[in-house]
């Protein structure tokens, strides 16, 4: 075995780049791409942050809720709408494509939303009844995450032929990424536009739901002080259910957007990394804080892209983790602070 590096310690440096020039040249492109990644992270991060705000629980299995959403979207396109994975893009025109995507998204949201509520019902509710320690909740979440992953990995192929298993689904591509216009030196593709616009709509809707509606007030009340909220006539159990539902719905929406960006990413283990990153995003913005999660998601997406440009593509995931550790070290409450109860301020 011949090593290209001369000195044995130079080997360490050989695999890590430090390419600031690449960051300078690609700055705007990286920012735009990072925004579209960040939009997806943000939607998933909301699920973590809401549940954490209300229950003080890291819903570790949220990444698997997202993964099930990807399969839901695929199922909708494949079985319900009859697209076959052909490798070529179906170019159906803007209106039809948006309609199909919207329907697939709806189905993905349905799958993720019901999975999230089901998880709450089956795994977490019994623990709350028993006043379990927080470690117990976390271990349950890990177990549930295992179960969902392995269900898709080994059981699903026996239920629906051609689904799940060790390999990713054959991609169904509705829209081919095509450059629509330029901002500064960056190209903006139709996929990017769809992702950012859709994420923006969901972000505004969620923010409205949490901050302006009666249900939202209930969620904020339980997050702030669940005992007092219960005394004031808020049904805690119903609020918790709603929280999981909102998180699940957004994870489903994010799942469809993700499959637009990474069509070959529909695999049983596909939620894990994205889940950790979305969690990092939630912490970055201040976990428990809705707007923090949205902001954290966008920031993480952009930072990750910059880090990738500087240190090399293979370090992309490491950048996210290091960022998480740094944030926790220097500002454990995140950028916007932690309180969902006071999120409106």
């Amino acid at each position, binding site marked *: *075995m011949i*090593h*290209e*590096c001369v000195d*044995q310690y130079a*080997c*360490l440096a*050989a*695999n*890590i780049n430090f390419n600031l020039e690449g960051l300078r040249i690609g700055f705007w492109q990286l920012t735009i791409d990072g925004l579209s990644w960040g939009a997806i992270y943000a939607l998933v991060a909301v699920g973590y942050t809401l549940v954490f705000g209300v229950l*003080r*629980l*890291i819903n*570790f299995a949220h990444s698997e809720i997202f993964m099930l959403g990807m399969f839901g979207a695929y199922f909708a396109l494949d079985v319900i709408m009859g697209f076959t994975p052909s490798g070529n893009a179906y170019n159906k025109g803007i209106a039809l494509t948006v309609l199909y995507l919207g329907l697939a998204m709806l189905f993905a949201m349905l799958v993720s939303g019901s999975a999230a509520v089901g998880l709450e019902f*089956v*795994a977490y509710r*019994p*623990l709350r009844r*028993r006043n*379990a*320690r*927080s*470690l*117990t*909740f*976390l*271990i*349950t979440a*890990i*177990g*549930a*995450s*295992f*179960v969902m*992953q*392995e*269900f898709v*990995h*080994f*059981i699903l192929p*026996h239920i629906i032929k051609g689904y799940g298993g060790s390999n990713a689904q054959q991609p169904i591509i509705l829209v081919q990424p095509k450059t629509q216009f330029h901002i500064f030196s960056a190209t903006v593709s139709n996929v990017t536009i769809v992702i950012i616009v859709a994420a923006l709509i969901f972000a505004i809707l969620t923010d409205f739901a949490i901050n302006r509606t009666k249900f939202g007030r209930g969620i904020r009340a339980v997050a702030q002080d669940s005992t007092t909220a219960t005394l004031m006539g808020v049904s805690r159990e119903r609020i918790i259910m709603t929280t999981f539902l909102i998180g699940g719905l957004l994870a489903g929406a994010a799942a469809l957007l993700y499959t637009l960006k990474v069509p070959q990413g529909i695999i049983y283990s596909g939620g*894990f*990394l994205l889940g*950790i990153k979305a*969690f*990092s995003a939630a*912490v970055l913005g201040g976990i428990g804080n809705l707007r923090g999660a949205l902001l954290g998601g966008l920031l993480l997406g952009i930072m990750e892209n910059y880090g990738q440009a500087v240190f090399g593509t*293979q*370090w992309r*995931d*490491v950048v996210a*983790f*290091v960022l*998480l*550790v740094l944030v*926790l*070290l220097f500002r*454990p409450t995140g950028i916007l602070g932690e309180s969902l109860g006071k999120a409106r301020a």
Partner: protein
Amino acid sequence: MSVTNRLLAPGDRLREWWSGLSRVQKWAFGILLFGALALLPLYTPPFLDTPGISFGGTLAQFAMVAIIAIGLNVVVGQAGLLDLGYVGFYAVGAYTVALLTSPNSPWNKVTDTGPFSAPWAWLSCVPLAMAITALAGLILGIPTLRLRGDYLAIVTLGFGEVIRLMADNLSDITNGPRGLSRVAFPRLGESDKLPEGVFSNGNSSGHANYGTWWFWLGLVLIVVILLLVGNLERSRVGRAWVAIREDEDAAEVMGVNTFRFKLWAFVMGAAIGGLSGALYAGQVQYVAPPSFNIINSMLFLCAVVLGGQGNKLGVIFGAFIIVYLPNRLLGVHFLGINMGDLKYLFFGLALVVMMIFRPEGLFPARAQLLAYGKAARDWLRTPPVEKDPAT
């Protein structure tokens, strides 16, 4: 008595029985059990045998996971810190040995003579591996142990993944996904038939194959670690750990330097994980990133939770379940599904169900007084001397 209590009664009764024994009796039973376990690969009862895979190899794997479970039990069970990146320490230990002794590595230190000559290389690497892993635990622990418990879980998870990514990406050192091969191992019992000794993978036939030898080595190490950890548990350190686990704030108020003792547990656990990693590297003689997938962390955690957090003998049983069942079910088909594949599904289900019905595990650690606790308990439990309490 609830249904779960009745179902799991053997675990409780066994635990009760064991706690009731005197120290001498415990030792006697321990030695008997040790002997029985050591003879297990030579005289394997047919119902225990693993048809698809070498039984000695399975037991060797069990010994490694048991060591990991004991180490992780210090962190999770004793100090109550949820460490999801434990596989990272395992990887650091394995890679330390591999990097220092594999010919594929630029840091290969194997020479013809001295402590790094072929017969001694593995042995000299073991303490190094433990030290480096302990250092990794220190570096990770200092910034993160000040965090809230649930953040710790995610940061350690990230650590485990980063270690694997580094092993994958730093390909000029670790040889990337191709891995490092021909790692050193102890050379013992070299003969004409086995030129590299009984621990080499050339010794693959019969009952006393290299897996069995590694199992025996692991078994000895388990006993040593159990003694060490047991003594720590009964010391001031152990009491501090339990205090932190039960209520960190209260412990702090009582004057326990929580951060220091948490770090101590973390580093301790890391070093034990590193030792297991070194064993793994030696046994397999090949180290590659996929063996350190983060999902293994969950499996280790499962061993601890199933066996009973805080009960160091219970977690060994947990490790046995974790390793033995998948190997036993390898190749067993049910409804066209290979049951060996479903291990993560079953263990995930087991985690969820256990947490709901019996969060303390199969063999729960009794919340008992430590150190002089046994004497105190016996004294408290002696029936009152007064003859007629009614008046």
